[in-house]
């Protein structure tokens, strides 16, 4: 058996096993990591097919961007907060498996019986090497024939950015943008006077609790914490700065910052 066939079978086996792992894993984080493994192997297969640039893009975009994003969301979102998509009743599982098996048969038949009706192109390995390699050849193709979809894909990404901002921005934050966005100065000694806090009150998730106008802040979960917070609000001033050379006392009513 030639070595490239051997390598292909190795890569393919890992790919399929990892893909199976994505579907079977109970923990979504395990799924994501199986997916990373699968994508790395697909990138290696791209190299075997002479698509070096795509292999790099595959690793940078898929594993570097998309899956890191997925992992971030997995960490940020409490899985209990998410509804389940559809009830996976046994019937539905059976239908899913059946559809998969049918499609596998069809695709298998198509692969084994296919004939190519089109003509061969001129991007033979020799020609690709003549223009300088895969990246150059892809670039020529992309910036001539596919110039228009290339421009439209930039709009697709722009829509993705706009959509992510519109949907993921908390509503209250969106309303406050432009009015007053205070940031806690970690460098200022009085801005982070954790020592003054009652014990056990270092805020949810380790944040320093910031006093904000009532109703403007999400309700804390524990009732004890809420009481303690209001007590804190009565006794404590927190220094916040809008930018590096300005200080504002929030809640104290006095403005100790330079204007």
């Amino acid at each position, binding site marked *: 058996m030639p070595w490239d066939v051997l390598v292909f079978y190795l890569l393919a086996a890992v790919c399929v096993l990892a893909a199976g792992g994505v579907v079977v894993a109970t923990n979504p984080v395990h799924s994501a990591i199986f997916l990373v493994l699968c994508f790395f192997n697909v990138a290696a297969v791209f190299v075997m097919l002479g698509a070096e640039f795509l292999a790099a893009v595959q690793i940078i975009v898929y594993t570097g961007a998309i899956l890191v994003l997925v992992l971030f969301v997995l960490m940020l979102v409490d899985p209990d907060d998410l509804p389940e998509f559809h009830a996976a009743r046994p019937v539905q599982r059976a239908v899913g498996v059946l559809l998969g098996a049918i499609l596998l048969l069809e695709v298998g038949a*198509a692969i084994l019986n296919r004939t190519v009706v089109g*003509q061969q*192109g001129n991007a033979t390995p020799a020609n690709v090497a003549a223009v300088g390699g895969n990246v150059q050849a892809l670039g*020529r193709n992309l910036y001539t024939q*596919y110039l228009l979809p290339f421009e439209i894909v930039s*709009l697709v990404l722009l*829509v993705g950015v706009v959509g992510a901002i*519109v949907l993921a921005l908390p509503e209250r934050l969106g309303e406050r943008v432009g009015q007053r966005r205070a940031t806690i100065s970690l460098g200022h000694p009085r801005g982070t006077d954790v020592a003054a806090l009652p014990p056990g009150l270092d805020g949810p998730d380790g944040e320093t609790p910031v006093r904000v106008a009532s109703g403007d802040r999400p309700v804390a979960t524990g009732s004890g914490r809420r009481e303690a917070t209001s007590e804190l609000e009565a006794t404590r001033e927190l220094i916040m700065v809008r930018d590096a050379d300005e200080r504002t006392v929030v809640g104290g009513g006095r403005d100790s910052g330079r204007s």
Partner: protein
Amino acid sequence: MLVELSNLPGPDWGLMLPQLAVFGLALVLLFGDAFMARAQHFRVLTGVSLVGYGLATALLWTQDGRNEATFFGLFRADGLTVFLSLVILVAALLTVMVSASYVDRLEGRMPIGEFYVLLAFSVLGALMVAAAGDLVMIFVGIELSSLATYILTAFAKRRLGAVEGALKYFLLGIFASAILVYGMAWIYGATGTTDLDGIARALQTATAGDEFLEPSLLLALLLTIVGLGFKMAAVPFHFWTPDAYDGAATPVTAFMSVVPKAAAFAATIRLLVQALGPMRDDWLNLIAVLAFVTMAFGNVVAVAQRNVKRMLAYSSIAHTGYMMVGLAVYRQQGGFDVGGGATGGDQGVTSLLYYILAYTVMNIGAFAVVAWLQHRGRGLTLDDFAGLASTQPLAAAAMTVFLLSLMGIPPTIGFRAKYEVILAAINADTAAGLALAISIVVLSAVSAFYYLRVVAVMYFDEPARTPRTESTPLLNVGIGAMAVATLLLGVFFSGQLIDLADRWSRALTVVAQAGGGG
């Protein structure tokens, strides 16, 4: 293909003026939103949107009667482009009229700048699909249009239903996209090209008029039809439709019941008729079965709905079925069988195109009346329509016009459109065509039940409570214009509109010339 870099043809920007106008509109909105005081947003951005879409619609005449391509054949300005762009731009104009005050006042004041920007990008994506000359363009255009629509669906994010509907729409939408693009990959694998005319040419050479059964192309056909079926909400790929339509803000529902559907039909016509036309025997029966199942299911389930928005969602599924009948009776009277001298398009596809236009006016109209009632503190159930005729006779009259048109009562535009589809189905002279024509008539009778129920509730029930007064001038103008168009376009100008739709077949003449030579 490795292209020689010397003597590259430059793009012909003059060919794509309407599309550029919408692109410019999106940029103006994006920057206007960023640099304008919040108080002016509403009026200025609405005005800019109306002017922009109006300008783009007016610029369509520069593409009329042309049959040219630019950007290496990826962008085509032909009869199909012009008619579908007209439908999409009219839908965009009407959506702006319906949505302006809704977005500004209801659902906790959604950010109107982003709303218009996403609307413009969705419209641009649909326009690009209509003008696509390549598989990649179809894919990218559909994605641009759908991504913006997913976000618009979730726009009323204070309501859980909106976000849930959007999530369902999104997950099934990207699932469908993956299936669609897998089908496109197989088409590319069989023909070695992504160019629609090139695919048709390769298939024509391979078939040479004989019986043709290439398994990989059949697989590709199946996958693309499943993918596009999801996008156009055909049964059995419709699961997302009721929840997404019901969850979204009403103007968004009006928009997504028309523009993504028009984009999906544009992609279907481009793919099946233009590229895979030589193997039409393989897909005609599949589309016919889907058309029947879709209209039967939509009509039967709509009967059980008491929520008017949900009822309209199922009715839009039924209308998808009527439109698919036009595609299912495609039999190529014009096009490349005649050999270059195409005089008229195929009646089936022409009737499909005319139906989309009619559906645009009457369906957005019906949703507009629902939005009009929501402005006045009413809900979405049938009971909220009780006694509307005694308190607001004009709104009730407009809703009656739209519902009668959706039902297909003369002299409305809905009747004319349905008549054209039935005529095309009968003229196809096949058993399937005849069966489809009969089922349209029977199922229209079924649909009378749920459309007329709303009319009856409006006219014969006692009003539950008096609605609050609210001033929505732009929405009123929009509803009035749509009601007048629904009433009159079926009688006047319908000949011209059908002629315009009939020019779609010129999209195929390029193939005719090339195919005749090879």
